[in-house]
């Protein structure tokens, strides 16, 4: 059952990603992207990361995609149907680069579960014990507010800087 739902969600995610790359209208691409993000949220649920699945739907599929849609509507690009795929040498170079990348990534994946380094870490049993003990939110919150507190505060400052910067950049008269 787990495997079947994984493959359904994976197919939806890949189809959505291909749709983003190939669809002519930016709004269509955006809707495919929402589908991809929702499928990835489903895969997060299958991987026992329920908190991140919720964040993925609320922040990514909710906030960020609405921001993209808002900009597309603001700039009136919704019906830009001109073909904008690169042709000729550039496209072939792109496929070469992408193929090489795929080869390198596929090579990394061989026998990943048998690698002896995984014995040093808790493993699925340890993670299941942690989740049963604390719940997913508690398991994330404890290190977030103890070991990684400085990074958490810095991310808050980063968001403030991005907010001010976005307003300053998009303002009408500079």
């Amino acid at each position, binding site marked *: 059952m787990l495997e079947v739902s994984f493959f359904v969600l994976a197919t939806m995610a890949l189809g959505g990603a291909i749709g983003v790359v190939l669809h002519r209208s930016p709004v269509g691409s955006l809707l495919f992207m929402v589908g991809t993000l929702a499928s990835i949220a489903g895969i*997060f649920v299958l991987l026992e990361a329920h908190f991140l699945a919720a964040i993925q739907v609320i922040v990514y599929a909710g906030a960020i995609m609405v921001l993209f849609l808002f900009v597309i509507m603001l700039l009136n690009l919704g019906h830009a149907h001109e073909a904008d795929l690169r042709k000729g040498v550039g496209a072939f170079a792109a496929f070469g*680069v992408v193929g090489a990348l795929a080869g390198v990534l596929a090579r990394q994946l061989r026998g990943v579960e048998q690698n002896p380094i995984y014995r040093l870490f808790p493993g699925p049993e340890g993670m299941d014990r942690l989740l049963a003990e604390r719940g997913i939110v508690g398991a994330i919150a404890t290190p977030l507010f103890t070991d*990684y507190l400085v990074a958490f505060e810095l991310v808050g400052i980063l968001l403030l800087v991005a907010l001010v910067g976005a307003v300053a950049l998009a303002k009408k008269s500079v």
Partner: protein
Amino acid sequence: MLAEALTLSALLFVIGALGVLIRRNAIIVFLCIEIQLNAVNLSFVALSRYLGIEGQLFVFFVMTVAAAEAAVGLAIIISIFRHYETVHVERFNLLKW
């Protein structure tokens, strides 16, 4: 499940890279970068099943930075559109040799 999730992550990353390379609409290029970020998030989550909860914390931070990046990037696209009346990346050739 780990190997399948990592394979899916690699495929999504490659599709995102392909989109960045072959599309000329700046907003679609941004969307493809978001696909790549999501592919990396997926491999973090898959590996966190084996290596501990820190992988999920990293994904949390990556999502925050992605939100900031999207806001600033879209603001830049808006201000470029005001100047050039287009979002075609090949028209932004002021610094081109």
